[in-house]
C-alpha cells in the first residue's frame, strides 16, 4: 500500500483528505505539529507528501526544500495562491507537482497517481478488473479468461469509469463528463452508441449480462453472480476475486485525467 503523508493545517481539509485517500487504498499519515514536520515525514518514510504551503510556524517552501535536501520522496505542493511566481518557486525547491485550491478530489487523486507513477514507485501498468474482466488502459485491451479484445478510446474510458464505480450507477451525464475530461467531447447519442458497441464487444469475448442500463438513471456493471448475492456477501466475492483472478483487485487509482 502506498503511503501518503499529509501536511495541512486546516482540520476539515485534513480529515476529508484522510477519508478520501484511505478509501482509495492509500495509507495516510498526518502530523499536526508543524515545527517538527520535516523530522516526522522522514521518520514515516512515505511515498508521497501532500504539502500545504500556508502553515503556522514555518513556511511551506522551507519544508519543501528541507525535505528535498534530505529525501527523494514525491512532493505535491498544495496552495491557494495561483501566481506563476509561487508555482515557479515550488518547482525550483524540488516539488514534483503543484495544485491550487480548490481542487476536485478526482484531480487530486490523478495527480497523486501520476507523481507516484513518475517516481517509479508503482508498477507502470495500471490494471482494472471486476468480476473476471480485466482492463489494461495502456493497451486499451480487455481480457476475459482466454479471450481478449481491443477497445476504442471511448469504450475503454467508459469501461474504466464503470469499473471504478463498480456496482454503482454512473449517470449518463457523469459518464459524458468523464469522457469530456479526457478530451472526448461526445454528445448524448454518441455515448449511447459507444455503450452499445462496448456491450457487443464484451459479448464477443463471452462477457454477458455485465453492463446494465438503468433507465433514466445511467449505467452500472454487475455480474449475474454478484446480483444473486447482492444483499448478502459482496465483500466475500471481492475477496475471493482478489485471490483468484487479479494481481490488482479492483482499481488502484482513480484517474480524473487521461491515463495515456
Amino acid at each position, binding site marked *: 500500500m502506498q503511503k501518503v503523508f499529509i501536511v495541512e493545517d486546516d482540520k476539515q481539509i485534513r480529515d476529508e483528505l484522510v*477519508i*478520501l485517500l484511505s478509501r482509495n487504498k492509500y495509507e495516510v499519515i498526518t502530523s499536526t505539529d508543524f515545527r517538527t514536520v520535516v523530522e516526522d515525514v522522514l521518520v514515516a518514510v512515505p511515498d508521497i507528501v501532500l504539502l500545504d504551503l500556508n502553515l503556522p510556524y514555518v513556511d511551506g517552501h522551507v519544508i519543501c526544500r528541507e525535505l528535498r535536501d534530505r529525501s527523494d520522496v514525491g512532493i505535491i505542493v498544495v496552495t491557494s495562491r*495561483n501566481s506563476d511566481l509561487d508555482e515557479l518557486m515550488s518547482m525550483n525547491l524540488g516539488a514534483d507537482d503543484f495544485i*491550487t*485550491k480548490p481542487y476536485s*478530489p478526482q484531480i487530486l487523486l490523478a495527480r497523486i497517481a501520476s507523481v507516484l507513477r513518475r517516481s517509479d514507485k508503482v508498477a507502470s501498468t495500471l490494471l482494472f478488473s471486476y468480476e473476471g474482466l480485466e482492463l489494461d488502459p495502456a493497451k486499451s485491451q480487455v481480457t476475459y479468461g482466454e479471450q481478449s479484445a481491443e477497445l476504442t478510446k471511448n469504450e475503454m474510458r467508459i469501461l474504466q469509469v464503470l469499473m471504478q464505480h463498480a456496482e454503482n450507477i454512473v449517470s449518463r*451525464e457523469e459518464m*459524458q463528463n468523464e469522457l*469530456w475530461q479526457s478530451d472526448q*467531447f461526445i454528445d448524448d447519442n454518441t455515448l449511447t452508441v459507444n455503450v452499445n458497441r462496448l456491450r457487443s464487444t464484451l459479448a464477443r469475448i463471452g462477457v454477458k449480462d455485465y453492463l446494465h442500463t438503468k433507465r433514466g438513471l445511467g449505467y452500472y456493471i454487475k455480474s449475474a453472480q454478484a446480483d444473486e448475492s447482492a444483499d448478502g456477501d459482496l465483500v466475500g466475492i471481492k475477496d475471493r476475486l482478489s485471490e483468484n483472478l487479479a494481481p490488482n483487485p479492483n482499481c488502484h487509482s482513480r484517474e480524473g485525467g487521461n491515463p495515456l
Partner: protein
Amino acid sequence: MKLRDYMRSKAMAIFLFLLAEGIVALLLWVAGVDTGILFAAAAALLLLFLVATTWDYLVRRRFYSSLKTAIDIGKDSYYVTEHLERPIFVEGQLTYDALARATKDMNDRIAKYRAASDEYRVYVETWIHEVKTPIAASRLTIGNNESDITKLLSHELDRIEAHVEQALYYARSTTVEKDYSIKLVDLDLVVKGAVKKQSRMLIENGIMPHFDGLDIKVYTDPKWLDFIIGQIISNSIKYHLPLSEEHTPEIRFSAQTSDSGFESSKVVLHMADNGIGIPSTDVARVFEKGFTGVNGRSFAKSTGIGLYLCKTLSEKMKLKMSIESQTVEEAKEGSTQHGTTVTIEFPLNKMFFLD
C-alpha cells in the same frame, strides 16, 4: 506668450506712457526748448521705455511659455512645477508658488488614495485566497459524501467559485503594474481546459462544443486567457436557446492565422454560439462596466462585469476583442444564424509585447 497678447495686456501702460510723452513734449514746447533737443528727449524716453518693456516681455515670455509647454505636452499636469524654474518677477513667483502648493497637495492626496486602494486590493486578494480553503474543504467533504443533496451543494459551490474567480481577476485588473506573463501557449489546450471546467453545466444543458483549427500557438497569459474564455462560455450557457427537436445548442471554437504581411500577422479565435443573441441596440455596449441590457435583465441575472473584465484584461495583454450578435428575430429577417460570436485577435509578432 505672443507679443500681441502681451501688448494688449499692457495697453493701459502704453497709453499712459504715450500720454506722458505727449505732456512732456507739450511742456518742453511751451517752455520754448529747441526742437532738436525736444525730439532727442522724446526719443530717449521712448528708447528707455522700449528697453524696459522688452526686458519685461522677455522675462515673462520665458516663464509663461515653458509653463504652457509643460501643461500642454505633459499628461501628468500635476507634476507641472517640476518642469519649471521659479521666475524672477513677482507675479510669476506668486503663480509658481501657488502651483507648487496646489500640485503638492494634489499629489499627496493621490498618493493617499492610491495607498488606500492598493491596501484594499491586497486585502481583497488575500481574502480570496483565504476563502479558497473553506471551499476546498467543502469540495472534499462533498466528494466524500456523494448524494443528491451534496450534488446540489456542489452546484452552489461552482457558483461561489465562479464569483470568487471573477473577484480575483477584477482586483487584478485594477493594478497599475503588470502582473501577467506572456508566454507562447497552445490555444487548443487553453480552450479545451476552459470547456472542461464548465463541462457539467454544458452537458446538463445539452450544449455541444466543436473545435476547429485550434492547433495553433499564441502569445498570451494562459491563466488570463482561461478566465476570459471561461466568461464567454458561461455567457453562452446563460443565454443559450434550450435543446429541442429542431435546435441543438452549441459553441464553436475556431481559429485561423491571418497572414497579411509580416508585421500584422495574427491568430484570430472565434467563439460562436447559437444562443438567443444580443439585440443590435445593446451589442455596442456589452463591454461597458455595469451594462446589463435586455438579456441581462430578462433572462439571467447579470452583473455587467464579466465582459467588461474580459475586455480590460484583453487590452492589458494587447489582444483585440470584439463581439457580433444576432437575435432570433433579427436572424429571421436576414435569414442568417442567430447567436453571438466573440472574436479575439492575438498578434503573432513578438516585438509587439516589448514596450
